[in-house]
């Protein structure tokens, strides 16, 4: 144990190889096996789907799936009963794009200077579309717990990297060993318009050109692979190419390209690329989409960022003397300063009102959290609701819309018989100022978040050491 980083790496490796059971390496979580995998949440307010509320209803969960929703249900004898008299039950929230539970690569202290910056190896330039996100999952990554405590039960997660970091996958935020957390190992090919550092493509110009070139190259090699498969004699066999082969499912349209596009122009560029090349696209982490609603309507697979700019408080009185003097020199006239403040505040309102504008524009959307801080999320949701988003639409974005955009609407997103038992259970309605998440269920497993200390019903003893 002289080298802790090496030993934890070894543990991770063993875990990935399936040698260690999850309980061993996740030693500080200490989950006790529940007696049975049957639960009954009784007498609760159950929001089955946005706008579809059942009062004093029961939700039955068995072996990971929902087996009953409604009033007057018989409680199975082996069920762990959660008395839901003052509780609200929602479908588990789904995050459209994040890196929750994904290992961050170590910063290389000395970046190797490229001999020929115009021809770097693909992996040096951030082009690793073949990377399987499962190889990077880390069940003890600390943010999993934070997001779960907010009600997020699953999300589309992606590797870190440059313009083509690898596969997106859909995972449960359950902190379990990799293969027990994966719902869809390849939900899309993840991409960002992120240039490489001091090598090609070093600008957005190069990124867009490289993207088009790779896609078209892949179209040709894929077509030739088909021709070759039907007649292998007399011609050279096609070479293996991990980068190009990673595009094949995109060209086949069996998976979309999942783009992160925060700014207005990022979104415009992604739409232009999609229009030129014709792939299916999911655009996530949108922050400035209010002017683009008409052009996003036909795509309709969008995730809006839960990160919005802070409201600027009137900082009069708090400003120190030096800053005041600077400002006086800069703005001899307070009218000018006020006008600039007003424009800034108008724009903050646009960011805050984005989700509401999408709702009004009739474009269904989910939410993504990639650049949001978990501690801000609930406040941000409330600000969006105050700015015009309805609570039902907010809930839809967190649940059913996200599930549908990710192609898992048949399994997640609502509380219905047969669906996977992902639930958020709160005291007071979720969007209420004083609401608290009490339990979260992920694939039928109960997580205690803010339950009373003497609550024996919770299958977990303690989440933190």
């Amino acid at each position, binding site marked *: 144990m002289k080298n802790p980083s090496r030993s934890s790496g070894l543990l991770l490796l063993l875990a990935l190889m399936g040698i260690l059971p999850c309980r061993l390496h996740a030693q500080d979580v200490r989950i006790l096996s529940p007696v049975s995998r049957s639960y009954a949440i009784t007498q609760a307010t159950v929001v089955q789907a946005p706008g579809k509320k059942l009062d004093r209803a029961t939700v039955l969960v068995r072996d990971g799936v929902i087996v009953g929703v409604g009033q007057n249900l018989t409680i199975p004898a082996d069920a762990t009963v959660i008395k839901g008299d003052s509780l609200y039950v929602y479908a588990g929230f789904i995050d459209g794009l994040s890196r929750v539970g994904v290992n961050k690569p170590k910063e290389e202290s000395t970046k190797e200077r490229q001999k020929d910056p*115009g021809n770097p190896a693909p992996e040096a330039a951030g082009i690793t579309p073949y990377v399987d996100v499962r190889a990077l999952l880390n069940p003890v990554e600390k943010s999993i717990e934070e997001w779960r405590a907010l009600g997020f039960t699953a999300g589309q997660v992606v590797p870190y990297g440059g313009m083509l970091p690898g596969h997106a996958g859909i995972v449960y935020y359950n902190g379990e060993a990799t293969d027990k957390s994966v719902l869809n190992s390849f939900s899309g090919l993840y991409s960002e318009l992120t240039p490489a550092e001091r090598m090609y493509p070093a600008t957005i110009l190069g990124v867009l050109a490289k993207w088009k070139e790779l896609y078209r190259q892949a179209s040709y090699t894929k077509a030739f692979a088909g021709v070759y498969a039907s007649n292998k004699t007399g011609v050279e066999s096609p070479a293996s190419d991990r980068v190009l082969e990673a595009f094949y499912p995109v060209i086949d349209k069996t998976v979309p390209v999942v783009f992160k596009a925060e700014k207005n122009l990022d979104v415009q560029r992604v739409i232009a690329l999609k229009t030129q090349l014709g792939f299916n696209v999911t655009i996530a982490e949108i922050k400035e989409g209010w002017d683009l609603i008409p052009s996003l309507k036909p795509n309709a697979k969008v995730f809006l960022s839960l990160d919005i700019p802070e409201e600027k408080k009137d900082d009069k009185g708090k400003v120190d003397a030096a800053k005041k003097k600077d400002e006086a020199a800069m703005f001899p006239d307070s009218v000018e300063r006020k006008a600039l403040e007003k424009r800034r505040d108008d724009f903050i309102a646009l960011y805050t009102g984005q989700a509401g504008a999408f709702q009004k524009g009739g474009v269904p959307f989910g939410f993504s959290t990639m650049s949001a801080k978990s501690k801000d999320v609930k406040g941000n949701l409330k600000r969006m609701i105050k700015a015009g988003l309805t609570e039902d639409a907010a809930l839809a974005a967190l649940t059913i819309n996200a599930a549908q955009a990710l192609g898992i609407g048949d399994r997640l997103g609502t509380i219905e018989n047969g669906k996977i038992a992902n639930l958020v259970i709160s005291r007071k309605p979720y969007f209420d100022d004083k609401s608290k998440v009490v339990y979260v269920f992920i694939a039928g497993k109960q997580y205690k978040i803010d339950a009373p200390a003497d609550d024996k019903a919770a299958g977990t003893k303690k989440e933190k050491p």
Partner: protein
Amino acid sequence: MTSIRRLVLSAALLGMTLSLYAQDKGSVLIKGGTVLTVTKGTLENTDVLIRDGKIEKIASGIAAPANTKVIEAKGLFVMPGIIDAHSHAALDAINEATSPVTSEVFTGEVLNPFEVNIYHALAGGVTTIHAMHGSANAIGGECETIKLRYGVKDAQALKMEGAPRTIKFALGENPTRVHGGGSNILPRTRMGVEFVIRESFAKAKEYGAAWDKYNKDKQQKGFHGAPPVYNLRLETLSEILKGNIIIHCHSYRSDEILSLLKVCQDYGVKRLVFQHVNEGFKVAPELAQYGAMASVFADWWAYKFEVYYSTAYNAAILTRNGVVTSINSDDGELMRHLYHEAGKTQKYGALNDDEALSLITINPAKQLGIESRVGSLEVGKEGDVAIFKGHPLSIYAVPTVTIVDGLVRFDREKDVDDMRLSVDPKEPLEAAVIHTQQDQSDNCMKDAEEIFYNLFDLK
């Protein structure tokens, strides 16, 4: 304090102007001005009628059709919108400086309609610009000709639809410093630059031939061979060789200008415009004979070793030798007073008014291949107009109204203080009013500065 009151109203006014901009083309009647057509002489007390974005009639006493805005231009000068054949405004990136050849990149994909520089240029009577790749590479990227429709937020809507494709080349110190000096690869010398261009053309020729062969083979029954490796860089270069893309080449010295002429001659490339061309005056007859054009500065030089041998008579000498010549800005500030720059050719070279105005109107239009649509006031052309108080070649000239496609995009009387289309809430308030060095950096070497300055330990 009227200006301040205006500022308070700015947001509201901006909203109004934006809704006006939502339509693409407009109608306007400009009444009673001195019309400087540039190609058809000067017409006193004449009206110009633009309908649905096109010039419909130029005559005196035109009655305003219904729902047409009327601009009273008595005592004012009406000229075609100014065209800047060399700009880097409205772009999010300018140089992909990592490779000496980057013909695969395209500035048309990185347009930024939110850049307030676009409005500043409108305030100088400019209506069309050539948004170019920078000069870090021997063969840079494709460029986009855009109209300054400030107010649109759709980047595609800035494009001048149907304008010919153009591409940036660069000779001399910039590519040799960035790649030879900075990365220790070709080209390190002017010989190297020529070699890089020749080699690229040769590869493009082979590439084109390989695809031609493949496409022919494919017709044969039973053929199941592999296609050539698709290469976007060579795709673009092939189009140059086919004559489908106009080369705009950054250049200063006469020897390298002649060497590129020879390269183009060898490969049958005819459409060629030299940019900067400070020593163009030395090789003006050769340029004219080849049909190559020149886009120059009025009097800007000595910022680099290769740019010392220069003269303010350059534009006039080129013009008198029959070279289609324009005056460009290559700079956000200079772009706002190209009419002054054109006026300098009357002091240095005694060009007449039409010749001087041609340098910033019809001639740059010819260099961009858009002379049938813009660059002069003629019936049937697009309604791009700049209105001046005072003759535009006079030092007292003040641009008052700028019209693009029949829509007023700049009006000095209604010029609000805060014309930003987008505000970043994370930016400090001061960012809106401080004019930094950064704002001036939309030049040839943007995105390549690091390599450029590291080489000389300049920071």
